[in-house]
């Protein structure tokens, strides 16, 4: 295990973890408002496919990214309508959204399988260019990767330092009290869903447009569920999610490293690492109120007047 290979794992983790982190940040906002989105997988697929399609047609990856974000927001609006306005069960609504996403993305993406696109440029940060090539080439990242940590900090800032973030968190903890303070819990949940959906769309865009640069059916391969687990692992905190995303995506890259150094560990077992880690974290912090989920997560707000 050389420095090069370790750095290689890190680079790979950063590449694949970026989309995971954006998605997780979106889901953090949703869950803070009290809504769990089991349909995240479907949302990601629709965003990835539509963003990819637009990029292929227009030749402009930035346009594709914007469309992907919009698609994500709109998909979440469906969940919002069912869970907030029609007061349906969130789990069932999320699953329905997931199936919808499977189908719609296949439809949108079909003409674009194996199509090549003009992707985002990759570049080095100014300081890195002086390193030897074999190291610096590992860290040629695209714009979205460089932006992901600032965005995470921005999400943190929104949640904890703004009036809107306070409203979101209040709604997710106790919608009745939020209502008593003059806020509209339903509207705030819709807003959270839309913003969260846009971030998820951004993550999906990075996956199809910037990272793999292609589209295949079900290319997200469970990332939606991993993101839900990651939200829990990070205890609903955007900053912790940064570390978590690295750890979770590092696990996959780590597995390749192990294999190449001759250590035989089942890829299946390594795939369980994100979930087992989350379970351990859940159990370890289970008794401590500070680390529990937003109190209204998953519950329908019946509302008064």
């Amino acid at each position, binding site marked *: 295990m050389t420095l090069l290979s370790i750095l290689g794992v890190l680079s790979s983790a950063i590449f694949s973890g970026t989309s995971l982190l954006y998605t997780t940040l979106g889901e953090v906002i949703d869950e803070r408002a009290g809504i*769990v989105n089991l349909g995240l997988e479907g949302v990601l697929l629709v965003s990835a496919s539509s963003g990819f399609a637009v990029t292929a047609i227009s030749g402009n990856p930035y346009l594709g990214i914007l469309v992907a974000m919009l698609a994500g927001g709109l998909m979440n609006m469906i969940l919002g309508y069912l869970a907030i306005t029609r007061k349906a069960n969130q789990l069932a609504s999320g699953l329905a959204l997931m199936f919808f996403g499977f189908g719609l993305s296949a439809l949108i993406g079909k003409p674009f399988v194996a199509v090549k696109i003009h992707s985002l440029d990759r570049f080095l940060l100014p300081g890195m260019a002086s390193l030897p090539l074999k190291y610096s080439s590992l860290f040629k990242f695209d714009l979205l990767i460089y932006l992901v940590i600032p965005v995470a900090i921005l999400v943190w800032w929104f949640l904890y330092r703004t009036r809107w973030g306070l409203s979101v968190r209040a709604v997710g903890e106790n919608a009745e009290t939020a209502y008593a303070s003059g806020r509209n819990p339903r509207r705030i949940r819709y807003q959270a869903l839309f913003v969260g959906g846009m971030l998820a769309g951004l993550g999906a865009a990075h996956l199809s447009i910037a990272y793999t640069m292609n589209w295949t059916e079900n290319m997200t391969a469970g990332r939606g569920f991993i993101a839900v687990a990651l939200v829990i692992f990070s205890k609903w905190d955007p900053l912790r999610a940064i570390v978590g995303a690295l750890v979770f995506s590092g696990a996959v890259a780590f597995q390749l490293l192990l294999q190449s150094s001759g250590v035989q560990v089942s890829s299946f077992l390594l795939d369980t690492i994100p979930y087992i880690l989350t379970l351990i974290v859940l159990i370890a912090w289970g008794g401590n109120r500070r680390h529990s989920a937003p109190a209204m997560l998953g519950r329908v707000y019946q509302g008064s007047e």
Partner: protein
Amino acid sequence: MTKIAETVNRFPAGGQKVLQTVVRYLLMILLACIMFGVILVIAGKDPIASYKDILSSTLGSAYGFSEVIVSMIPMLLTALAVALPFKVGLINIGGEGQLYIGAAFATFGALTFPNLPAWVLLPLMVILGMLGGALWAFIPGYLKSIGLVNETITSLLLNSVAPKIVGFLILGFWHSPRDTVRTPNFVDAARLSTFFGTRVHLGLVIGLILLIVFWLVMKYTRWGLEMGAIGSNPQAARRNGIPLAKYLVVIMCLGGAIAGLAGMVQVSGFYGTLFPNFSMGLGFMGFMICWLAGGDPLGIVLMAFVVSVIYSGGNLLQLTRGLPYAVINILLAFTLFIVLGRPNFFKGKKS
């Protein structure tokens, strides 16, 4: 002495209610079909011809029909695995994982005891399957009871872990000599027998029997009464002396056992072998079917049938219309959206 109030059963005739429900469901499915038809048009396909394809391939031929039944079988069980806990107010979202672990346990039985006669081996596999599922359902329940760990979250996590464990077991220990991605084929003694040259297997009988038993238990027995009381008002049930905690644990494990049984039925009756990711969302599908059916056994059979028709029909759609198979999910999703959105088709009546 005051006259005893009219105690004759004046409940509206059951038949009228059933008719209303069926019509409501038909309308919802029709609405979903229309919406999907719009999608097809946008995609440049002929909706009428597409629906004709779906119906002809599924209901038009005896074999097509039997294929629909085959794919229905596991969903009957995974839906029941959600419906039973639902009666006491529990939401079992862990069916997917319970199914995998049940299949793994059953496979263990099949591979370890290939020389037992069928009448011993099959019941053994049934028990193993149920045991595996029950165990996987017990974990979230137990964690919930000792700490503040939300059982929905743990169930979802375990759903993702279970298929990987199965993959690991296959790859590491159980794979057939020639093929590293599946176990060797089960011996005949470990296979549920099929009917009439189709692929419909004994699992159908098991599923239907369990659904009937479920219905009978809820309607006539003491446990059904107590479970209904718990579901209706858990604290009152407790005050009335019903052992709430015991019921919750037992019923959750029972739900898991049924999902595990679904796994056993799939590997023994349908596949005859175990391979990774053999369940394409059967657990989640069962969850949705139970939701569509409102937890009612007859509704489960009907909805499982409808969902099977949709999915089997999707196969042909892919061949003849050039649509990716996954597109059929849209039709299912629309049906779900409409049922979840609870529209009021009958004026003045609540859904």
